[in-house]
């Protein structure tokens, strides 16, 4: 038994540097001779750039240069692309609006960069930016889904501001299901726009060596290889092998640091242009304006049921706000990461979803924790809960009646996925127990006696994680495969360096991947180092998002470790004068079966690099790689139960209990998994009760600071009750499914189901702020 292996709550090895202030984030990096960049940002939601007069700025001391989109265009810096091609239901390709990194003629959202100022100091660059005189012709904006319908056409190639109209499922079968239904439940609601707010703002430190034409870009990326690929193959900054992208410690991402942004691109270009390193760090206001936002859907959903509450069909019509441009994966979020999840945990036989994706004069919208799957779960779990109330069936019972049963796996849904395994009743049963569901009516009565209103809400979510089988993803329009790389390099002294194409920005890969290797190779945990986030040090990788690091990246490391064992057996067999097939490996010992001949892992490692008398067909060295391409998505699922108490006098919602029971398959580190669930729930409660990104009609972001946008603080949240049930994933070597997004996917519906239960209303808009709740509680 390895007490630092798989299944153990090993303390995180990366923590020491973070708790002592020794973490190294991008803004902590300073290069000799570095300059500072400040972006010039559009004050208008939609405008034509008439002129940019830099003369006064250039006359200021310490201003090194002022550049505009024309300067980048002159250097053949190309558009920022969207990496996922979606086709409309008529077969036509989605309409992609041109997005130069720095706007050339038109700006299309408040905060879009139209230039940058470089200074010897940050203060000089800021003063320079103040002195730039830009002249705009303001154009009427369409700053919301509603305004985009009738409003001005933003992009010349996108009539009615529609980028695509996508569908999935069988429309005729769904219509037939509704025609035969005993009951139909209908809801229309918005999924509120969120602003990710990783605590570390985005940043870049770029340098260029003219003697070798090599770029080095330190940046806050969740996927440095993808950043390099896009900046070189599509944007045309440099040949791919001439750009090294390093993501050092990164202070949270939640999706927002996946994407290829204007500012990092411009900083790298500017380093070559001026021949000196350039540093750019966003302040929080810039993060609000320019990080890709999340969600922002308007949906009507209908559920058809028979007289016994069995689901017959689900129809979903969604309008999704893309923002002003299609961000790197903006097209995939409201389509393949959304429509495919609408079966939820249920046997609903007919489903049809249609999504109209719309350009607006707002910041681009892309993946934020859960990305499409929270929106899908909200649709399914709100309509199911509402149907239960309308039919006066206990909401847990209605779900049980419709769950896919354990003996039905693998289960092909009507929306293109094949679930490999699960046990939904098990997680619901455990959640009901932990939430003391039986005692709820007594608690509600006690609350009423105190003048409070109590409600309970369920959410039985499913998600598709472990993105993704490359063949399937590419068939569906992905511009890259979605495998992951892993390398296990055994050093001559027997210590191990693990390289992964995944990237940790809080998830704890340095610990969990070391646990995996310790388990597989019997090497002490302390002698294993995990390296990530540097295109100069490891194989091509796809990075971290979609709860994929353990399922895909971890599996790559397992396969590489397996190859180490195979090679080690050949070396041991040679040294012990046995056949490789007669050598067993267990807990770090190579032993010849039925003999007392054995070698330690360290002895074999040393021999690999001191290869005395190796036969011709046995190469020296002990280092192996794997590119792991999953066969299917993984399907984490679980049951969340929220209990809230509302003060009708103030409208304040107190989350008195939140229970999450999740099935993530095999758990590598229970402590880390619980931590991932906690924050997911916190972000989901934030969406349900507090957070809302709001633009006014003129396209100004009126929630543009932490004073206006309400992030959950410690006293807004309860402690959480979390537990797991386990059905191991059937198709990866670890049996893991992924845990990073579940909390954010399941929790908003549970909270709103609880709030509406407490208030006795059919719906309440997210975020259910105290004002909205107070109005609902008082019938206003």
């Amino acid at each position, binding site marked *: 038994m390895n007490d630092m292996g798989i299944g153990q709550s090993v303390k995180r090895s990366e923590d020491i540097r973070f*708790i002592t202030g020794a973490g*190294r984030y991008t803004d*902590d990096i300073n290069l000799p001779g570095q300059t500072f960049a400040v972006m010039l940002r559009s004050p208008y939601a939609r405008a034509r750039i008439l002129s940019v007069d830099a003369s006064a700025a250039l006359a200021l001391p310490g201003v090194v240069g002022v550049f505009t989109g024309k300067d980048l265009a002159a250097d053949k810096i190309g558009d920022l692309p969207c990496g996922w091609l979606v086709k409309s239901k008529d077969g036509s390709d989605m309409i992609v609006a041109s997005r130069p990194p720095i706007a050339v003629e038109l700006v299309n959202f408040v905060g879009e960069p139209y230039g940058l100022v470089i200074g010897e100091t940050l203060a000089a660059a800021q003063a320079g930016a103040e002195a730039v005189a830009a002249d705009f012709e303001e154009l009427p904006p369409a700053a919301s889904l509603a305004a985009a319908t009738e409003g001005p056409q933003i992009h010349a190639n996108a009539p009615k501001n529609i980028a695509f109209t996508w569908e999935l499922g069988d429309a005729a079968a769904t219509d037939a299901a509704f025609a035969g239904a005993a009951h139909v439940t209908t809801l229309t609601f918005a999924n509120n726009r969120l602003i990710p707010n990783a605590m*570390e703002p985005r940043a870049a430190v770029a340098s260029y060596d003219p003697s070798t034409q090599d770029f080095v870009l330190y940046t806050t990326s969740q996927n440095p290889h993808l950043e390099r690929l896009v900046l070189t193959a599509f944007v045309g900054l440099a040949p791919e092998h001439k750009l090294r992208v390093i993501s050092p410690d990164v202070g949270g991402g939640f999706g927002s640091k996946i994407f290829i942004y204007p500012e990092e691109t411009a900083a790298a270009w500017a380093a070559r242009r001026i021949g000196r390193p350039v540093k750019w760090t966003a302040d929080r206001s810039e993060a609000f304006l320019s990080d890709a936002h999340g969600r922002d859907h308007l949906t009507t959903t209908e559920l058809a049921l028979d007289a016994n509450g069995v689901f017959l069909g689900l129809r979903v019509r969604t309008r999704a706000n893309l923002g002003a441009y299609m961000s790197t994966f903006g097209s995939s979020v409201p389509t393949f990461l959304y429509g495919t999840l609408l079966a939820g945990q249920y046997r609903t036989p007919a489903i049809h979803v249609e999504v109209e994706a719309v350009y607006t004069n707002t910041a681009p919208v892309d993946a934020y924790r859960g990305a499409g799957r929270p929106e899908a779960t909200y649709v399914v779990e709100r309509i199911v809960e509402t149907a239960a109330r309308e039919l006066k069936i206990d909401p847990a019972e209605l779900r049980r009646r419709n769950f896919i049963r354990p003996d039905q796996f693998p289960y092909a849904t009507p929306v293109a996925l094949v679930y490999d395994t699960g046990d939904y009743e098990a997680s619901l049963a455990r959640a009901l127990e932990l939430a003391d569901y039986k005692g709820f009516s007594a608690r509600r009565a006690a609350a009423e006696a105190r003048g409070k209103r109590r409600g309970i809400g369920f959410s039985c979510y499913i998600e598709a994680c472990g993105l993704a089988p490359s063949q399937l993803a590419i068939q569906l329009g992905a511009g890259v495969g979605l495998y992951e790389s892993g390398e296990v390099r055994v050093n001559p002294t027997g210590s191990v360096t693990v390289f992964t194409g995944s990237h940790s920005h*809080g998830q704890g890969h340095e610990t969990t991947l070391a646990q995996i290797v310790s388990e597989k190779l019997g090497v002490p945990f302390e002698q294993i180092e995990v390296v990530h986030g540097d295109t100069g040090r490891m194989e091509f990788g796809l990075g971290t998002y979609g709860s994929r690091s353990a399922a895909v990246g971890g599996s790559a490391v397992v396969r590489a470790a397996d190859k180490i064992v195979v090679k080690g057996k050949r070396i041991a067999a040679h040294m012990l004068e046995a056949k490789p097939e007669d050598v067993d490996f267990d807990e770090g010992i190579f032993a010849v079966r039925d003999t007392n001949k054995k070698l330690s892992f360290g002895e074999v490692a040393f021999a690999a690099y001191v290869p005395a008398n190796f036969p011709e067909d046995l190469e020296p060295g002990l280092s192996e790689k794997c590119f792991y391409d999953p066969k299917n998505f993984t399907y984490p699922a679980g049951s969340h139960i929220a209990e809230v108490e509302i003060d009708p006098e103030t409208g304040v919602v107190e989350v008195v209990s939140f229970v999450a029971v999740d099935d993530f398959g095999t758990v590598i580190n229970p402590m880390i998994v619980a931590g991932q669930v906690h*924050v997911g729930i916190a972000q989901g409660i934030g969406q349900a009760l507090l957070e809302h990104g709001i633009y006014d009609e003129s396209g100004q972001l009126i929630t543009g600071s932490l004073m206006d946008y309400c992030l959950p603080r*410690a006293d807004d949240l309860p402690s959480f009750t979390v537990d797991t049930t386990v059905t191991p994933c059937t198709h990866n070597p670890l049996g893991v499914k992924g845990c990073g997004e579940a909390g954010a996917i399941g929790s908003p519906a549970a909270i709103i189901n609880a709030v509406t239960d407490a208030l006795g209303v059919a719906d309440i808009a997210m975020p259910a702020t105290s004002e909205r709740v107070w109005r609902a509680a008082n019938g206003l």
Partner: protein
Amino acid sequence: MKVSMVVNDVPRELDVAANALLVDVIRGQLRLTGAHVGCDTSQCGACTVHVNGRAVKSCTMLAAQAEGATVTTIEGIGAAGNLHPMQAAFQDEHGLQCGFCTPGMIMSAIDLVKRSGPLDEKTVREGLEGNLCRCTGYHNIVRAVLGAAAQMGAEARS
């Protein structure tokens, strides 16, 4: 302008701009990059340090205002092998993920424990209201602070 202060027990004579914020001097001139800048409205608390023993958001004061002060940053409270109980508790309870808010959170939490009476979950949550964390949902931070408070109390008594 000239400013003198003691930072992590080291006397410093610094030449700073009159409008330089304490956090920018700590990070930029002293290269003590444990204090982080997470916002521009003094909302996030990632830059929290101790000035004369009290937790202060170092973006809320000018470096010049620290004239004669004793400043302690995260780098000054403990190091690997000799961690402050609050640092150790954050690791033990998994009270951090990306680590960006962590130095400020630890500095606030130490001050909270020192100036408070007995703490419970509610008072810890209220006491940390000025520090934002987007990674943990605060659950394990609260546990860490309560654990460290017990440890610090025991050390103070012994």
